[in-house]
């Protein structure tokens, strides 16, 4: 098991977690392709865009987000972001709903929160939790990332939409 404060290790593990969660729970999203790792992100009026320095490609505007904080020897958060249509696609995939079934904003937000919760839980099991000492928080929306944290973002192209999964981690043992 690598160090949870190693950003590269966290991202590699999160990539496995995304595959696991989406393969098992979100129909229609199997085989989603990562298009950028360690992207540069910009935030303008609450809208996030990721640019890949290497390829120069840019993601869609992502503004729906769910944040799961975690605490333990290290603290941090997992953030799931997507475009509006991407959020609906994820919610429909998670709920096994077809296009004819109505989907409200609260359903979409709750589905994103649950998806982020499963991603954080999988990360906790695989990368953070050798001793069972970590605690996951309840889903939040619109929380800023922790300053000085290690980690990064994975950006996925899913069907016609974009989605990003960020993981950020701080070592609380170093703090006085």
């Amino acid at each position, binding site marked *: 098991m690598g160090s949870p404060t190693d950003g590269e290790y966290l991202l590699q593990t999160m990539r496995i977690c995304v595959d696991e969660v989406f393969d098992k*729970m979100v129909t229609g999203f199997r085989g989603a392709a990562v298009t950028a790792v360690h992207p540069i992100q910009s935030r303008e009026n609450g809208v996030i865009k990721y640019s890949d320095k290497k390829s120069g490609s840019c993601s869609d505007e992502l503004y729906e987000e769910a944040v799961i904080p975690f605490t333990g020897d290290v603290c941090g958060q997992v953030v799931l972001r997507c475009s509006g249509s991407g959020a609906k696609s994820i919610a429909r995939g998670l709920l*096994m709903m077809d296009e004819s079934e109505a989907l409200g904003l*609260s359903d979409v937000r*709750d589905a994103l929160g649950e998806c982020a919760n499963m991603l954080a839980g999988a990360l906790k099991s695989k990368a953070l939790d050798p001793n069972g000492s970590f605690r996951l928080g*309840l889903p939040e929306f619109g929380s800023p990332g922790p300053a000085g944290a290690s980690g990064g973002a994975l950006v996925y192209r899913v069907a016609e939409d974009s989605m990003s999964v960020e993981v950020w981690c701080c070592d609380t043992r170093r703090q006085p």
Partner: protein
Amino acid sequence: MNKILLVDDSGTMRKILMRVLRQAEIDCDGFLEASNGAEGLEFLNSEPGVSLVLCDFNMPVMNGLEFVKSVRAIEARKTLPIVMVTTEGGAEMVKNAMDAGASGYVTKPFTPESIKTALVALGK
């Protein structure tokens, strides 16, 4: 009556579980939904027909572990099957839940098959 009580603060997860249980053709006369352990306990006190509980771990107000302990403290509910369905997959968390009286444990993300396997093991 043969009702299944779903205790999870996520409405999405309760809907997913209902769909999975229907697809798995688990014998059931209906579902009751609670968004935390305290609401779940209220259902158990007011609804006599609950034959199975699926319960999350992390919830506001009363978490899943406290819920299981509270249910097992009720004499008439000591053998009620309670399956934890949770993102908490650590060995210590599983042990805590089973020691508290949980009957089974399924880690999210799950497949419909893993839910069915856990319920078949309980004779459902």
